[in-house]
């Protein structure tokens, strides 16, 4: 019995590592019937939490080091060799801090808010395909599930902002919600193009559709089509805003709002918020990888022997690195600029991109020589023209001049 279980565990681990199908099926038959659902759930959930918590720790370090290098500094290098133990020090500091609750706060809501934020964020990981055979939950409407749980985090942020009974918290929460609602629309619209072309809402199916290579070496990823490229840019911009990252970090703009909805949180609850923020960033990056960058597919033919989950995670880390790079470069936007960008630029562009994707889809039957070039040109003209016109409309028309005050002396 015990030997069977051990054998099953080893076989399961081997199947996971070597990218073979049905790793869970190796262990479950060795267990009693009643235990199977529980064990299978635990075995699905715990690696996600473990892997992404580790990735969170690594990312905080990578971010601080990378930002340092971008600003010609070294970054943290004191704890452990090259500072690699810095996340452990940060974590210890965070968890041993006093947990302060303001006297006038709404205690119950204040307590529930971090939980209500962390739970949907973790739920979003359920539908991502991490590897060829590593899909925790292959839902038919997986993409919808992802966006649904993503949307329910907004209420948690409101709870945090309102219950703290602090003006900065409330202002930060209002900003966060306005921003998240505004950017959810371009985010979903850019994902809809992929759904339209792939003909499915299931992430695993979408990745499977990006299989194969054009001309034998260009991967058949959606980012390498005109609509996919623009869609990926829109998706990345909107996901920056969704995960409250710079340059869209207005909700916690330190220079004006202390820390936004996090102002009154400390210790473990703050750590939970921090964790949820990073986990949300990973989840949405993972979705971007799944939708546009071919998920776990290898970038070149002949690289299939590398386990597929390694490709997924290297693409994920690449996305995270781009996020850090953007954070190190672009200054924070103003609120009106933020909303104008969402409603006057990204939304029309996403709609035009949707049309372009439709044209791309319907011209796929063209067979004459040069058809691909013509399709590319057509799409480029459509999207490029819209980009230039919308970009012109977005940039301020007024000349900057000295301000005159009519009523003040």
């Amino acid at each position, binding site marked *: 019995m015990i030997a069977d279980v051990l054998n099953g565990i080893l076989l399961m681990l081997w199947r996971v590592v070597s990218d073979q199908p049905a790793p869970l099926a190796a262990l479950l038959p060795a267990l009693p019937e009643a235990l199977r659902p529980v064990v299978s759930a635990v075995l699905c959930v715990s690696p996600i939490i473990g892997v992404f918590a580790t990735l969170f720790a690594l990312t905080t370090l990578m971010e601080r080091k990378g930002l340092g290098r971008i600003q010609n500094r070294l970054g943290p290098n004191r704890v452990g060799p090259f500072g690699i133990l810095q996340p452990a020090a940060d974590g210890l500091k965070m968890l041993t801090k006093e947990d302060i609750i303001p006297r006038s706060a*709404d205690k119950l*809501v204040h307590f529930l808010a971090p939980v209500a934020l962390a739970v949907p964020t973790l739920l979003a990981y359920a539908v991502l395909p991490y590897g060829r055979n590593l899909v925790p939950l292959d*839902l*038919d*409407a997986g993409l*919808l*599930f992802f*966006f*649904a*749980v993503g*949307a*329910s985090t*907004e*209420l948690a942020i*409101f*709870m945090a902002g*309102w219950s703290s009974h602090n003006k900065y918290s*409330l202002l930060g929460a*209002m900003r966060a*919600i306005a921003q998240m*609602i505004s950017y*959810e629309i371009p985010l979903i619209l850019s994902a809809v193009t992929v759904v339209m072309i792939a*003909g*499915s*809402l299931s992430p695993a199916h979408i990745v499977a559709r990006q299989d194969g290579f054009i001309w034998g070496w260009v991967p058949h990823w959606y980012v390498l089509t005109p609509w996919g490229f623009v869609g990926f840019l829109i998706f990345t911009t909107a996901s920056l805003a969704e995960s409250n990252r710079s340059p869209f970090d207005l909700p916690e703009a330190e220079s004006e709002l202390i820390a936004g909805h996090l102002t009154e949180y400390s210790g473990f609850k703050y750590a939970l918020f921090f964790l949820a923020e990073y986990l949300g960033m990973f989840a949405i990056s993972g979705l971007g990888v799944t939708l546009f960058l071919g998920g776990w597919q290898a970038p070149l033919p002949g690289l299939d022997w590398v386990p597929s989950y390694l490709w997924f995670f290297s693409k994920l880390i690449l996305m995270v690195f781009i996020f850090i790079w953007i954070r190190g470069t672009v200054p924070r936007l103003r609120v009106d600029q933020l909303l104008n960008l969402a409603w006057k630029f990204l939304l029309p562009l996403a709609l035009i991109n949707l049309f372009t994707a439709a044209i791309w889809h319907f011209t796929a039957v063209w067979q004459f020589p040069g058809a691909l070039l013509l399709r590319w040109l057509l799409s480029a003209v459509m999207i490029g023209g819209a980009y230039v016109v919308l970009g012109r409309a977005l940039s301020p028309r007024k000349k900057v001049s000295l301000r005159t005050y009519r009523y003040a002396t």
Partner: protein
Amino acid sequence: MQIPFAIIAALTIVAGIAAMSLRKLVHCALCLALVFAGLAAMYLQLGAQFVGFAQILVYIGAVAILVVFAILLTNSSSSLLPTVRSRSWVFGLVVAVLVFATLVKVILASSTVAGRSLPENPLPTVKDLGTQMMTYYILPLEVMGLLLTAATIGAVIIAMQEKKPVEPLKPGSAGAPPTHP
């Protein structure tokens, strides 16, 4: 099958009662969001994935936020309300009973309760739903779309500031934008 249903139902009902009877408006709104979540869980339990996720996306992600924003912007979030007892509670009771009776009648008339067999494909895929919506139910879909567009345009018109020639402010005239009911 029965225990999860019992848990979800109890949660939904308790949250619903709380949403009606709590004294802080924001608490009521949060409880309402909990009710929405309970309903979504019930849809999911019945195997209606698309409806369940759409319920979460629309109701928790948008409607609850809208309610909360409305409460905040009308500036009554901090004040404790006295326990509400409507004067027209008899009328409300009549409406509630009528709605309940209609629902009971519909539920009793449904195939499951009447003992008839379930439809052949109890778990339609999203693709099936989409196909149905774009073919058989195209007219209702378009009418709903038109209605929502009209509502959006109306909201924009109400919110839009009317352009007036700029005049210097006179004492006495507040220069307030035109108010709309």
